[in-house]
């Protein structure tokens, strides 16, 4: 691999100082499951790699009354390994269970998945569906952006030079709420999403009507795609085939995929609708506390 320097700061201030001291040529390292490969293949050529895993702020994983705080460097296995978090924020847990295999999940973080900013990133639609906000620190101080505003193009995001993501914060889940993420791939595991869909729904007390919903798609646009119209098609409606079909139609409509070896435009648009329906139904079932048939690889 190409030569570079390595630092592992213990504090956020030190990390910001290192990154902003060398803005063009420094790169944060979380789990390294994208970064190390990108350095090896020379897609990225940093002179300084700043390991952010020793910074306490990036390792926070805290479920409280106000919601969930997820440190940017927390690896996937810790997220789905916490039964309370996996139940309350199940779309994120669903994503973390399918990012790579076990070895990848030991290291890969949701923060790294977000900052790598691939259109097919499996956890970003879940962050968007669950209305997460991204907390950023940099030489100018702290700021926050909504998860749906973070990515700006394939491999591109709103981070300015010297900035890093500290944590991802999620609002508290509603009393009757459920969420889910799934993707279509031709195999059971270890593949890149052809289409992925994340949804979070809030139902009324009876569990019979949607109060609100948020839906986001992976791999059908240059960035993870928030489809506001799909949520709007559900809000205030009874839980019915018609409402769910309308949301699916909105998702199909919003998708602007490309043709590539993984799928054609037509196929990806079709699958966007099919998965949106299935994901909403699963999120509803989870909100109601019903047994559901979902297992990875379906």
């Amino acid at each position: 691999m190409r030569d570079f320097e390595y630092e592992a700061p213990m504090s956020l201030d030190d990390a910001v100082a290192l990154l902003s001291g060398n803005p063009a040529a420094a790169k944060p390292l979380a789990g390294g499951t994208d970064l190390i490969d990108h350095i090896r293949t020379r897609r990225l050529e940093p002179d300084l790699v700043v390991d952010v895993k020793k910074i306490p702020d990036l390792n926070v994983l805290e479920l409280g009354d106000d919601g969930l705080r997820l440190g940017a460097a927390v690896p996937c296995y810790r997220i789905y390994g916490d039964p309370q978090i996996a139940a309350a924020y199940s779309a994120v847990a669903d994503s973390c269970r399918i990012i790579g295999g076990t070895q990848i999940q030991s290291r890969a973080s949701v923060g790294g998945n977000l900052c790598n900013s691939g259109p097919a990133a499996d956890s970003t639609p879940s962050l968007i569906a669950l209305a997460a906000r991204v907390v950023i620190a940099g030489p100018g101080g702290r700021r926050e952006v909504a998860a749906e505003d973070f990515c700006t193009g394939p491999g591109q995001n709103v981070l300015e030079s010297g900035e890093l993501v500290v944590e991802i914060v999620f609002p508290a889940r509603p009393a009757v709420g459920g969420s889910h993420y799934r993707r279509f791939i031709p195999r059971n595991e270890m593949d890149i999403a052809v289409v992925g869909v994340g949804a979070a729904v809030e139902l009324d007390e009876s569990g019979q009507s949607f109060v609100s919903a948020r839906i986001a798609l992976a791999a059908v646009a240059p960035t993870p795609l928030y489809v506001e119209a799909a949520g709007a098609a559900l809000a205030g409606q009874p839980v019915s085939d018609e409402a769910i079909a309308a949301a699916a139609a909105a998702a199909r409509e919003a998708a602007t995929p490309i043709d590539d070896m993984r799928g054609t435009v037509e196929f990806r648009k079709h699958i966007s609708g099919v998965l949106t329906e299935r994901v909403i139904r699963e999120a509803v079932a989870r909100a109601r506390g019903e047994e559901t048939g979902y297992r990875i690889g379906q």
Partner: protein
Amino acid sequence: MAKQRIVSTSINGNPVEFLAAPRQTLLEVLRDNLDLIGTKEGCSNGNCGACTVIFNGRPVDSCLVLAVEAEGGELETIEGVALTDGLHVIQDAFLGQAALQCGICTPGFIMSTKALLEENASPSEDEIRFHLAGNLCRCTGYDKIVRAVQQAAEGVTN
């Protein structure tokens, strides 16, 4: 060139210090500097699992870890699996079920299996297949490997 640093770790229960440049992966250092060549290189990009080692209790692809990240950490490699007086039950099971041909993938499968059984002593077939999804085998076929893991699980629980 970035300076080499001294990295202090424990490998298979023994304290080990080694010199590594930041750009060296853990896989490179294990094989090229420490002569622990039981850990194999397949793809060098995280897809095949041949380089699996256990790092602070978790299975990882050592080709996607920088050696300098091992500072203060605990590593287990295939060299630490066999007992002083014979093979580990997982190794026995792989032999018993003929779960290897060329053997390149085997150290990785054994390390992944060890990590699985430490977490879940009696996994279902589905759980075994998902846990081992990050390990590829080019020659044997996965059914024999799954049977080996099942046999090992019986050995571990008994």
